[in-house]
């Protein structure tokens, strides 16, 4: 698998994202598969940030630890570029005084880095452009180094600025000047494989895919309070509200958000909300209420490292124990982990179906690196996951319902649900402990059966959940992994790369993280010798659940909690180390 990585580096707010995304769109037109990430501080402007794009002629799912080329847009970018590069890599920059950065040249030399200086600022100015347009010059140059045809990137720029003809003209001049690369001696070249055709893909980030999944799945209301990295869900839902007709409300706080979602769900629409860990804390009392009144509830928790404010713009898988353990009282719940845009699109639909048919709380966990990463994926298939609501809708049945059908004690723990007002039978959704019709009870002999019923639902849930999936060789792998969420992305690339090296790797992936489908894990341990954990937190939270559930122990745990995703190479090294200790 041949992959190329490019990083656009500089200070936050200096046009990194726009530049990166224009490049991605152009690469897409050429037929490349891509993945990307944006690293930035929790500041509006200033501080080191970067935008990385990895691409290949085959689908890729992870990012490289080190890149082939850094496009340094300013001194901060330049100073951070050496560490980001592979040895033999290239830096494109416009820092006249780069030789005054102590040790830079020497280090570059030692690492065999080619530094290409282009007077981009001057070029931009000469063409009537401003500061931000220097990025066009360096982008043009980069495109040239990649050996890609000028028209493709130019067409992208034209599309982007078609409503601003003046700007466009200057932009194109800058781009062309960069591409021309005059006065640059020894222009290096990055030799790319070229796609045979342009696959039908979309370039989309996880949070957008979450929205699309919800919208396609019939969600009609979205409530939120801004919080990184969930805020882009709110932005997208609001931006598309005219098209979708969905009620989108930015509310005054997360408690409100949760309560509004619950109220709306209770009446019978599909509503959801999203937040991050700290906001989720505030929602937990409402989660407990949803469980008690058995009203479906779907909440997306976009994980970032904690505790407290933590690293608000970075990634992790640290809230699993929290969403399983939080919210007072005992009740079953479902936790789903998102991994890539396709899973975001599909699992959101499942989330609603499970929440409604099982009358339960569904917590969808995603991660900053899933939320905000743009990647190419096949165009989402619609209408593959029918809406399932588990409502009584038959006229006759509705006419003949009794109030106590609502929480009737039964084997599955899932009683009949109908929408308020659709049947002459009304019911009380009572946060107090109650009888089958929702009337309050404190009698021991009435409390126990309804408590049992609610808890029995855990079994029904477990049966309803799909099995986890094995990627790579079915069994007897040289090395095996278990994981959830974004772990899948890096594993897919590692499996392929290891195979090329002759190492068979497989990976057991849980989309449905809780309750644990334990038999699959047991079998996986039974059929594979060296089973390891790959998880983005300190405690190996999911790992502990698997160990406790199966009674097995992982051979090794590769845990990461520095706010960064698992990079392709580091996992490959881990595989190598296990394989030849």
């Amino acid at each position, binding site marked *: 698998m041949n992959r190329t990585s490019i990083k656009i580096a500089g200070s936050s707010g200096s046009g990194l994202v726009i530049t990166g995304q224009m490049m991605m769109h152009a690469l897409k037109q050429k037929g490349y598969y891509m993945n990307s990430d944006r690293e930035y501080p929790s500041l509006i402007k200033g501080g080191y940030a970067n935008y990385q794009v990895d691409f290949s002629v085959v689908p890729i799912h992870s990012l490289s630890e080190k890149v082939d080329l850094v496009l340094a847009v300013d001194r901060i970018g330049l100073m951070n570029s050496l560490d980001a590069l592979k040895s033999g890599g290239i830096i494109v920059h416009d820092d006249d005084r780069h030789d005054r950065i102590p040790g830079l040249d020497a280090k570059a030399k030692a690492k065999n880095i080619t530094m290409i200086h282009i007077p981009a600022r001057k070029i931009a100015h000469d063409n009537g452009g401003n500061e931000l347009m220097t990025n066009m010059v360096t982008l043009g140059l980069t495109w040239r180094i990649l050996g890609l045809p000028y028209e493709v990137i130019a067409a992208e720029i034209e599309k982007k600025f078609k409503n601003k003809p003046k700007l466009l003209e200057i932009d194109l001049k800058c781009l062309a000047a960069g591409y021309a690369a005059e006065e640059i001696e020894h222009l290096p070249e990055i030799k790319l494989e070229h796609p045979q055709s342009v696959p039908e893909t979309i370039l989309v980030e996880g949070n957008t895919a979450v929205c699309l999944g919800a919208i396609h799945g019939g969600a*009609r209301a979205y409530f939120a309070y801004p919080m990184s990295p969930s805020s882009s869900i709110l932005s997208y839902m609001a931006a598309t509200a005219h098209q979708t007709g969905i009620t989108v409300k930015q509310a005054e706080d997360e408690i409100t958000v949760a309560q509004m979602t619950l109220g709306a769900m209770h009446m019978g629409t599909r509503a959801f909300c999203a937040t991050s860990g700290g906001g989720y804390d505030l929602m937990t009392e409402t989660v407990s209420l949803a469980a008690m009144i058995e009203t479906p509830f779907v909440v997306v928790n976009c994980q970032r490292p904690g505790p407290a404010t933590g690293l608000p713009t970075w990634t992790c898988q640290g809230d699993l124990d929290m969403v399983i353990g939080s919210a007072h009282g005992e009740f079953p719940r479902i936790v789903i982990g998102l991994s890539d845009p396709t899973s975001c699109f599909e699992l959101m639909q499942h989330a609603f179906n499970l929440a409604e048919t099982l009358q339960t709380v569904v917590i969808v966990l995603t991660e900053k690196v899933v939320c905000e990463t743009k990647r190419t994926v096949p165009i989402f298939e619609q209408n593959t996951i029918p809406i399932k609501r588990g409502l009584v809708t038959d006229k006759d049945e509705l006419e003949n319902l009794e109030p106590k059908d609502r929480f009737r004690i039964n084997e599955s723990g899932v009683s009949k649900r109908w929408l308020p007002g659709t049947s002459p039978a009304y019911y009380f959704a009572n*946060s107090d402990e109650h009888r089958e019709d929702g009337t309050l009870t404190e009698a021991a002999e009435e409390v126990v059966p309804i408590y049992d019923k609610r808890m029995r639902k855990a079994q029904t849930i477990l049966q309803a959940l799909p099995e986890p999936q094995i990627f790579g060789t079915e069994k007897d792998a040289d090395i095996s992994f278990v994981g959830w969420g974004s772990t899948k992305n890096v594993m897919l690339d590692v499996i392929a790369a290891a195979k090329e090296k002759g190492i068979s790797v497989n990976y057991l992936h849980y989309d449905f993280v809780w309750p644990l489908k334990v038999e699959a894990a047991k079998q996986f341990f039974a059929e594979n010798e060296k089973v390891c954990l790959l998880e983005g937190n300190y405690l190996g939270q999911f790992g502990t659940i698997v160990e406790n559930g199966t009674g097995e122990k992982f051979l090794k745990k590769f845990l990461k909690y520095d706010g960064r995703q698992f990079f392709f190479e580091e996992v490959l090294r881990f595989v190598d180390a296990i394989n030849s200790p």
Partner: protein
Amino acid sequence: MNCNCHSLDHINGILDHQDVYLDFEESDEKLTWCSGCGNYGIQKAVFRALTLENIPVKDAFFCYDIGCSGNESDKHGGNTIHGLHGRVLPLAAGAVLADHRKKVIATAGDGATFSEGINHLVHTIRNDYPVVFVLHNNENYALTTGQASSLTREGQKMNASPDGVFAAPMNACHFALSLNATFVARSFSGDVKHMTAILQQALRHNGFAFVEIMQVCPTYNKTTSQEWFLERIKYLEEQTEYDKMNIDEARKVSQDLEENITMGVLYDNPVGNFIERLPQRRDKQTTLVEEVAPHDVTKLLATFR
């Protein structure tokens, strides 16, 4: 003056719709509020108002807070949520946004409304969600055995305030008015007819209807008793001049809680509720509930190709 509180229409109206009324009242379980509790009267008035407005059980939806006010919420006809302490307003707002054809009635105590949930009160008022809110103001936390709320009067000795409360009480209606609520009314738990009339107007209001019921709690609030109130109540309906659309006047008459306590619709000035003002919903005829169906996202997807 469209108040019918001193006429017989009221009772005749109920008689005309006995079936509707009985659907609400129906329950074989005994209510367990203390004897003399103002909640009995409030509940009755709510059912009467719904009846007189011809809103049957199936078109009403009740959201109850946790407190004495919410106790007994499972002893009448109607679909209900008895939710969490302090959270009834956003719950009701969510419910009505989903299904605006229902009349959503939210009920909470003064503790819930002015302490635990005052953030919700502020923003429910600002957003003008079309909910009828019935504040059971008994000037204390009754269900937790008589602690002070933000509406307990200065100097009152309460559970956990043995020296007497030393912050001045908030004034419920005045606070709502300071936030430009579009409907603000006050009534008294001892006057079912007046409450009924007020609640009828609240039910007709297009937007958030804030109804404060000054409620007696003979168990924990000995000071502002039935008698105490009866001596001090002034009915706005008896004042022919009053302009319900003048917020400054409303603020003025709402202020006195000691000598002349004004009862009535203090302010009523609908501006078009939240749903009507939401651009993407303005022209929709359906409810969000009815709209749940697979939504084609092809066009949205196209922007990512």
